[in-house]
């Protein structure tokens, strides 16, 4: 670390407009922001961790019922959504690279495409929810899951109550994930606005980087949700 005289000199030299007063130099500011986002993502892991824990316990307890319930979800829609999100992660990476290399048009385009993919994801999700609603698979008074055979045991029917538990977890987990997507879209609309105003430079584009981190994290949650909710017991 430099001593105090050097630090004050640096303050004189670098008139980075985005440097906040309590940081010594832009590097420190960038490191702090990035660490802050990583730490926040650690809290998010714990947040979803509680749900994954509940899922694990009930999946082991009601193994066959969960399989039957999972089979009723449209895996094609889920797979499409997975592809959509993976593509959006790619566009985020390109956006960060564009910000680093001062390609403003590319940055704006990639942020817009990312948001578009985010909306596509939420749209497909809404279709899924609508299907579940029409099939009476939403937990509550109108829930029904009668005479659905257990995969691999055509003579046995799944317990509707235990299947309802699967759908409870399905709606809570995908619902909270969708809520994170909405927050991500909010962040990205601000990024788009700031990018259009030309605020990001190769020296200062921390919001793009940490906003991108958040987006990747929400993608990764989906990468775990997809097999756990859609792909268990899919063998023909």
């Amino acid at each position, binding site marked *: *670390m*430099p*001593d*105090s005289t050097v*630090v*004050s000199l640096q303050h004189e030299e670098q008139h980075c407009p985005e440097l*906040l*007063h*309590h*940081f*010594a130099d832009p590097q*420190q500011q960038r*490191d*702090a922001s990035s*660490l*802050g986002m990583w*730490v*926040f993502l*650690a*809290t*998010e892991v*714990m*947040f*979803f*961790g*509680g*749900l994954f*824990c*509940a899922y694990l*316990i*009930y999946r082991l*307890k*009601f193994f066959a019922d969960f399989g039957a319930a999972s089979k009723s979800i449209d895996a094609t829609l889920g797979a499409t959504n997975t592809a959509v999100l993976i593509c959006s992660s790619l566009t985020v990476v390109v956006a960060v690279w564009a910000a680093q290399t001062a390609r403003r048009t590319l940055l704006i385009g990639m942020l817009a495409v990312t948001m578009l993919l985010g909306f596509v994801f939420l749209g497909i999700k809404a279709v899924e929810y609508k299907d579940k609603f029409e099939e009476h698979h939403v*937990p*509550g*008074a109108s829930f029904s899951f009668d005479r659905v055979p257990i995969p691999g045991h055509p003579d046995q029917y799944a*317990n509707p*109550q*235990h299947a*309802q*538990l699967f759908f*409870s*977890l399905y*709606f*809570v987990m995908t619902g*909270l994930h969708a809520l994170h997507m909405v927050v991500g879209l909010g962040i990205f609309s601000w990024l788009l606005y700031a990018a259009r105003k030309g605020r990001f430079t190769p020296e200062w584009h921390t919001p793009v980087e940490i906003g991108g981190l958040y987006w990747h994290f929400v993608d990764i949650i989906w990468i775990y949700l997809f097999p756990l909710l859609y792909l268990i017991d899919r063998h023909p």
Partner: protein
Amino acid sequence: MSMEIAIPQPVERENYLNKEYGVWSWLLTTDHKRIALLYLISITFFFFIGGFFALLIRLELLTPAGDLVQADTYNKLFTMHGMVMVFFFLIPSIPAVLGNFLVPMMIGAKDLAFPRINLLSWYLYIIGGVMMLHCMLTGGVDTGWTFYAPFSTNYSNTKIVEAGLAIFVAGFSSILTGLNFVVTIHRMRAPGLTWSRLPLFIWAHYATSIIQLLGTPVIAVTIVLVACERALHLGIFDPRLGGDPLLFQHLFWFYSHPAVYIMILPSMGVVTEIIACFSRKRIFGYSFVAFSSIAIAVFGFLVWAHHMFVAGMSVYAALVFSLLSYAVAVPSAIKVFNWTATLYKGSIHYDAPMLYAFGFLGLFTMGGLTGLFLAALGIDVHVTDTYFVVAHFHYIMVGGAVMGYLGGMHFWWPKISGRLYPEGWARLAALIVFIGFNLTFFPQFLLGYMGMPRRYYDYSHMPEFQVLNVLSTAGATVLGVGYLLPMVYFLWSMRYGKPASDNPWNAAGLEWKTASPPPTFNFDEEPVVTWEAYNYEELDAPHSEEVPVAR
């Protein structure tokens, strides 16, 4: 080292208190010191609300018959007492007030890494607090602060969702404070301030922040599930639908046991600073004290199920959790031994902060050792849900955390306000708190061991318990006086107290090397640290200013 060393400053220089005036200069401030004072006012408010509920509880238990309040009201009283004290006083107490004020100063930074997020955390706390107040005023909650399922999810007819959301919002405030501390401690230290030169207060807050960050999201998602369960009848905790209420307890205690360490670790940090200063010695076993904080944070996450020994858990799991609960006592004991070893052959000064630190040492040791009783499977079955448990955790939370908080408030009050508090009154208050505390809670150990259950408003079938209950209620009154006194003389000293010098205790630490009260950016020049923490031998050496500080 009492007040006569203090040299009054003739001219008041510009500092964080007099730089700007007006409501908005406070409500929109991003200065960590001002935010700390906002927190101080808010948590004091909630402390007295929680204390009011406690007083009503103690008044009800004065007589064996359930005469002052009815059963439903009593249930709400202890629930709201617990929720307010845990989530709106104890958890933010030291971190959000003293930590907010001192973490940047102790590491030589101008502010926390994210000043606006710091302000946001206060607003979230206030939003949560207002929701909690509204919930209280419109009916309250009767489940106990633990809101166990399925009572909370299916049966209780009170405002659980609203109280849960209040705690959810306040939890985010806690997460953001922890996040700010972790990033600040990693990234904002002054040149030369290595990890091994950090004050142990910082290590304690670092460990606390880790727990806040990794624990709080779990209670957040648990509250979300409880709310969904009540609103949509999902069945995740409902045994009729195949759900498991034990899962709720596991998720709840996964946060709420480490939450105890959120309350006690900062207090340990405060006590470490005070003991070193008032023994005029380097802390004994610096690295052991530092790493024991981290060890408590880590082990603290692995012991939660000792709250559930009678809940129908697997016996083998219970054995493991019992063993781990013994293990978590080891780092706490390391701290107590190191504090004691610091006192040994120290030049001890009995100023008010030190009296609180002594109180902490004794009461925390009692609370910790009785915790081992509860970690033992056999004894726990005997005393589960009795006043023994109540006494145990009050020895930790009130005897430990609040003692440390008050000690810290006295120790840093000259720095915060620029004024000295009246030492005589402060020593008297420390004594009253100690006596009142023991009178309140020691009888509860006896009551619990004899079998008085907690959460009963009527013990008329066991009138022999009345004597000890009367003692406890009398003690609560004394304790109340002990808590009111500091508030009165702190407020008094803001106007009439003698002006404090920059370093009235002649203490080590960067926060004492700047003005009292500090300027807005804490230091006039960025400090460069060339000395080890707690260099009291050098500070007290004759002609210390001529001795080079590097060792």
